[in-house]
């Protein structure tokens, strides 16, 4: 699963993040979050707990939502990793991003990238979720600011956009 192993327990691996191949040299116990933020240099993915409890670090692995703080980076080799930086199409916001702005679903914004990743996975699975399904689908992402009302409304609004 790795390109090469060195004596000190570090590995040379190549990670596919948002369609770009990043060769990185990392310890085997490094979590994916710290490698995305540190080595790959994309800081949109946040750390809120390092304990699989908040969802701020959510990324997609082959389209499935994963708390990257609790996932070994070396295991992500060979999979398509999508972070918040890979969500836009060119200069165009993804309908979820636009809907969060329109509905007022963003306050401090720290939960927002993780929320968007979870919502993308939800909508990929279920293009027209009920409110209840949205609430369950986002229940792994804590938001302390909004009370969730406007985030749920934004996901439903985005779902109504063609090809969201």
């Amino acid at each position: 699963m790795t390109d090469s192993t060195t004596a000190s327990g570090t590995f040379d691996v190549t990670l596919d993040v948002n369609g770009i191949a990043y060769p990185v040299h990392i310890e085997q116990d490094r979590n994916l979050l710290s490698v995305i933020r540190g080595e790959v240099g994309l800081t949109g993915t946040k750390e809120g707990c390092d304990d699989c409890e908040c969802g701020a670090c959510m990324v997609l692995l082959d389209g499935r939502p994963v708390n990257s703080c609790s996932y070994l980076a070396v295991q992500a080799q060979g999979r398509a990793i999508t972070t918040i930086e890979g969500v836009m199409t060119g200069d165009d916001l993804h309908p979820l991003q636009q809907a969060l702005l329109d509905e007022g679903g963003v306050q401090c914004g720290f939960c927002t990238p993780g929320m968007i990743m979870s919502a993308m996975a939800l909508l990929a699975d279920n293009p027209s979720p009920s409110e209840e399904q949205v609430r369950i689908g986002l229940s792994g992402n804590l938001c302390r600011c909004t009370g969730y009302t406007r985030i749920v409304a934004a996901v439903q609004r985005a779902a109504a956009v063609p090809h969201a």
Partner: protein
Amino acid sequence: MTATTTAITTSPPRFVRADGPDKVTGSGRYTADLSLTGVLAAKFRYANIGHARIVRLDVTAARAMPGVFAVLTADDVPDVRFGPFVQDRTLFARDVVRFEGEIVAAVAAVNAVVAQRAVDAIVVEYEPLPVINDIEAALSVESALVHPDWQSYGAADALVRDRNDASFASITKGDVGAGMAAADHIIESRYVADGCHAVPIEPRAVVAQWEGNKVTIWTTTQVPFDARAGVCETLQLPTNRVRIIVPHLGGGFGGKCGFHYEAHIAALARVAKRPVRLVFTRREEFIAPDRRRESIVFNIETGVLDDGTITARRAWLAMDNGAYTADAAFFSQLAAMHTAGPYRIPNVQVEAHLVYTNHQPSGSVRAPTAPQACWALESHTDEVAAAVGIDPVEFRRRNAVDTGAVGPSGQTYGEIGLQQCIDLAAGGAGYGQPLPDDEAIGVAIGWWPSFSVPSGAYIKIDGDGAGQIITGAQECGTGSVMTLRDLAADELGMKPEDFELVYQDTAVAPYDMGATGSQTLLNNGRAVIAAAGQVAEQLKKLAADHLEAAEADIVLADGHAYVAGTPATTVSLVELAGIAAGGQLLIGHGSSTPAEAPPLAGSSCVGDLGMAAFVAPQFSCHAVRVKLDRDTGVARVLHVSAAHDSGIIINPIGAHGQVEGAVMMGIGQALSEGTTYDDQARQRNAALLEYKLQTCADAPPILVQFVEIFTPDAGPRGAKGLAEAPNIATAAAISNALAKLIGRPVRQLPMTAERVWNTIQGDAS
């Protein structure tokens, strides 16, 4: 209430915040996202023990480790005691540690792993001291003292202190003994609220870098100027050599108020001669900061006539200050006000003690003291209403303050909307309609002052017509800074998008108190309007010259200046900006003048820190429908109806978001959020797995309604504060719903399933 001044808003129009695109794309930078060449990682050595004397502290081995650049203890920084009200604290523990999260030493090393190894290599030996773990016991004369030297500490003159009592306050009005004697019923209650936490999703982070004798500190503070003052005081630097910059802030809720680790990291960076970065773990976020919502013990007694008229209220409170006095010193008076409540009561005697313990220090968390005090008082109020057989909503209608009424501290209110809030909240919840027998609606009322303080802003418009608002204000997520663009745009006949905001940087902007006290729009809004007014005058003068008209006839609208009555005689603001760029530049500055505190009559206050007089008071009523599983004690909130008088609402979508978020925080406080301690005063649930926040799946529908009344001493256009007020009444309303379902109140907060179940079983909890 008159038709011309009152409006009821229920649904918000669109408002897209200026920082929104940064936040939805992941391009916005938060403090932990910053990286500087050569940056080192910081780690702290904490006491990890509730109360002990340091008998040995040896950092030799840690200092000798490869990759370690600095190890600091109390011996390595100026010997300064600091604290906003009581100077009882030092940057690093000296001789004694008084709570588990107290910092004994700090390390800067090449990376976090090495830094942690060095922290572990520091040798500390302790001699245990008695652990003061109980608020009421700490007040007894036999109790050991958390600060045996308390009398030698500097402190604010107004504070009344005695041994473990760090701040005593009382509010007295009328003759409470006579009032009780005149009552037909006297109802006594005891309630105990646990402490809890702000829990912003972003953990704290600080990055410091020195250039020569100046330091720049990027930090997650809600109050940049306060953080600067703390650094200057503890490291003995002038304000103009310390620059505090706050990148995007990932929430605060009061938890990031005050001065935290900026000085520790600056001191490390100075010794290491390298930039240093601190990023907290979630556990550190729970145990270390001196901003925790305090636990409070309440004994409340109310005298009432058969017809439901309150004759007297007496209350005694003991509040957990923790080991050091942060901004909690003014909480005694604030909690006393909230335990008196927004009621017309002729005779009042409330006494509140802020008590040292060996717990994490308390500090301002969203509406400090009010949710707990409202919970206790409003639960008690339902007991009083039941004693006289009056419906709780009707009881509040009769006794709550209204326009022209005199409150418990002797303040006479101008036009206020509390009675309308009661009607709207109860109506929105369907109060009085039949419900299944496992459901009930509880109702509670709350209030909160607006904080009127100095605040400044500049506005400039450059040669291309692009504007900048340069403000000392701090954005913590509420959107209040974002709203400033609308105010400037309105003054200048421009669009909000014509302005960029330069904010949360102490080196470039004038003073503002920060994202605290719900004060941004109230105070900085006035400053921005004043600054924009100066620029408007400058534009009008230019336009008058250009259009050969009188300055007084110039109108600014739609990006143009025109002559009143002849709209064809016009010049664009962009053209005027270009003219100005070659001569008299377009620059305005504004400073907000605080409103005076309203007078109090017939009351006396001991330990008076100005919290008994509420400037532009805000009022609220929440009605909450709760479903109870009587077999398990599990309560579920089905619907919240929240009505607020926070003055005129300037940014409706932001205002709705504040209420919705605060209500959810209130549900958490009501049902799941409470800190528990072991017998050594260490937190037992300092992790999100054990300290449960409400999730999206838990969130009920929340109906938000505003009663909009113009208040003269409020902020721009009659806006009062808003961010804290909606956090106050939710837990109380849930308590009253549960009491209806159980037949008696749950006397401890949070009202966990276990405590609810015990109450159902009849245990006096």
